[in-house]
């Protein structure tokens, strides 16, 4: 497997605060990679920087041999990296169908867009049932499906997900992670950041632990799941 996305010495500063202090990690094509860590570890900042929302202080972001630092968001989405933002952020006053079409905004190939629309409906039959409904009237779980579907409409090579389980019931979270697995099986590389370490590590091929702006541990999902210190810090094992 080849590296599709490679981050080197990434530093992110907000004013005088150093949010991310020179991290490096690789995302291999076709895998699920997760960054776990507590609030303020710099996970979201990392994703926001990869997607072009934040400019890094230094470091490089290499995507399929191309440096993404300094490119605008449209170029990054076009290149094949799409972010599913934290808190779902669907468009509440657009219908489900319009939300999905907004995801394909940068694409012009109508026939292919329709094909992908069918694909998203296949993944989420619930969205097809409700395609005429306003996004804001969906339940939390359905909104998360819509957010994922919308991101898929840009036909990403890498889909980055920021806390997809946030504020959802455990049963719904299980459903979302099943979907992530399915999407990954169909060839989309996933970069997932989560506080729900247990769920994330279970499906991840590779995992990195972030603490206060640094990567402190890495390994396969299974390795970290069985790591004693991780168990204590994130998985709620009793001492």
């Amino acid at each position: 497997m080849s590296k599709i996305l490679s981050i080197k010495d990434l530093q992110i500063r907000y004013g005088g605060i150093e949010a991310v202090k020179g991290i490096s990690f690789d995302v291999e094509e076709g895998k699920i990679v997760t960054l776990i860590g507590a609030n303020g570890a710099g996970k979201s900042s990392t994703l926001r920087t990869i997607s072009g929302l934040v400019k890094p202080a230094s470091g490089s972001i290499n995507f399929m041999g191309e440096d993404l630092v300094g490119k605008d968001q449209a170029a990054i989405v076009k290149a094949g990296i799409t972010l599913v933002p934290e808190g779902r952020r669907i468009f509440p006053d657009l219908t489900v169908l319009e939300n999905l079409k907004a995801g394909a905004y940068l694409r012009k190939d109508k026939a292919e867009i329709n094909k992908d629309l069918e694909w998203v409906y296949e993944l989420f039959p619930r969205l097809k049932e409700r395609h005429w409904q306003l996004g804001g009237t969906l339940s939390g779980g359905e909104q998360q499906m819509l957010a994922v579907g919308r991101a898929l409409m840009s036909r990403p090579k890498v889909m980055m997900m920021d806390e997809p389980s946030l504020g959802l019931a455990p049963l719904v979270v299980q459903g979302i992670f099943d979907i992530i697995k399915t999407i990954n099986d169909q060839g989309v590389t996933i970069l997932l950041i989560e506080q729900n370490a247990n769920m994330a590590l279970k499906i991840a091929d590779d995992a990195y632990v972030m603490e206060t702006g640094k990567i402190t541990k890495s390994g396969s999902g299974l390795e970290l799941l069985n790591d004693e210190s991780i168990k204590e810090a994130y998985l709620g094992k009793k001492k």
Partner: protein
Amino acid sequence: MLTDKQLRRKQFILVLAVCLVVLAGAIILDATLPSYHIIIKVIKKGAVYATVAVSMNLLNGFTGLFSLGQAGFMLLGAYTYAIFSIPVAQRAGVYMYYDGGIVQFSIPEFFAGIFGESFGTGFGMIVTLILAGVIAGLIALLIGLPVLRLKSDYLAIATLGFAEIVRALFQWAKLGPLTNGSNLLRAYPDFKHCTAYILITAAVVAIMFLLVNSSYGRAFKAIRDDEVAAEAMGINLAKHKRLSFVISSFFAGVGGGMLAMYMGTVQALSFKSAMTYEILLLVVIGGIGSLTGSVFTSFVYVAAVEWLLRGLDSGKFLGISAPGIFKNGFRMAIVSILIMVVVLFFSKGIFGDKELHDLVKKQPKKAKEVKKNA
């Protein structure tokens, strides 16, 4: 359940029928009533307000940019129209304090020379109206660069300030050779028939409708709903906000040109911020995000204020003669109460975010009800 295709055909037929009825009505009124009749005047002013309200709705309703610069762009449009359409022979009289002004040609006259008197003049007037929009759009492009970085209330204040500056600037004596200073511009051609106004407004609304339902329209609405998510989809915020601002100002400029035609004279003094608020009122009452709502409300509002409720100011209303109460100003008091009542009962405006064609719904039962009502 109707299929999507059937539904769309029914909706199209409904819209087409309404358009044809309105058009036929306008033609009949033009043929039977003199051009100074109040009904013709109401239709003309209603068309002007509908044009501007629709343009404001694009910006405030569909893109979520709270701008209050509409009167400024209307002023630009009105002056552009007047300056470039006053017949050359009349300029010495109009610009009597400025040696006939510096512009010494008239676009409608130019086209009258090519296509003949009646068609050429009309064609030239349309061209001048489009020019009015272009000038307003160009200024919007320049103003937009700094102003569109602002959000919500700050954007509103900045655009409001812009409109006031434009108004002051156009009255400046140093610009007199172009704008005639604080004097009136007059003697330019206008359309005598209200049908022409209706046709222009219909064209504007149709263009707006196509725009709102295109992928650009979807991007505008996405920005309105959630800027962060829109950006994550690769929608360029700055570019689309600028686009919406320029298009909205273009049509506000066209509306301003139409207003100049309707009023017969142009003076910067009349483009106060109160005019923007009046348009904003129409947008809100009609439904933020509903084009047909804006159009419908514009005509109803103008008809009520200019015509139907006139009696409240002049002593006699609906056969009741009460000169003690029905005095000057009472009409606007009643209008204010009516507006409050409408807002209380329709908290999202009369049309909400629905359009006229949404009267034909998917559920066949409701569609039947609509037919009965119609």
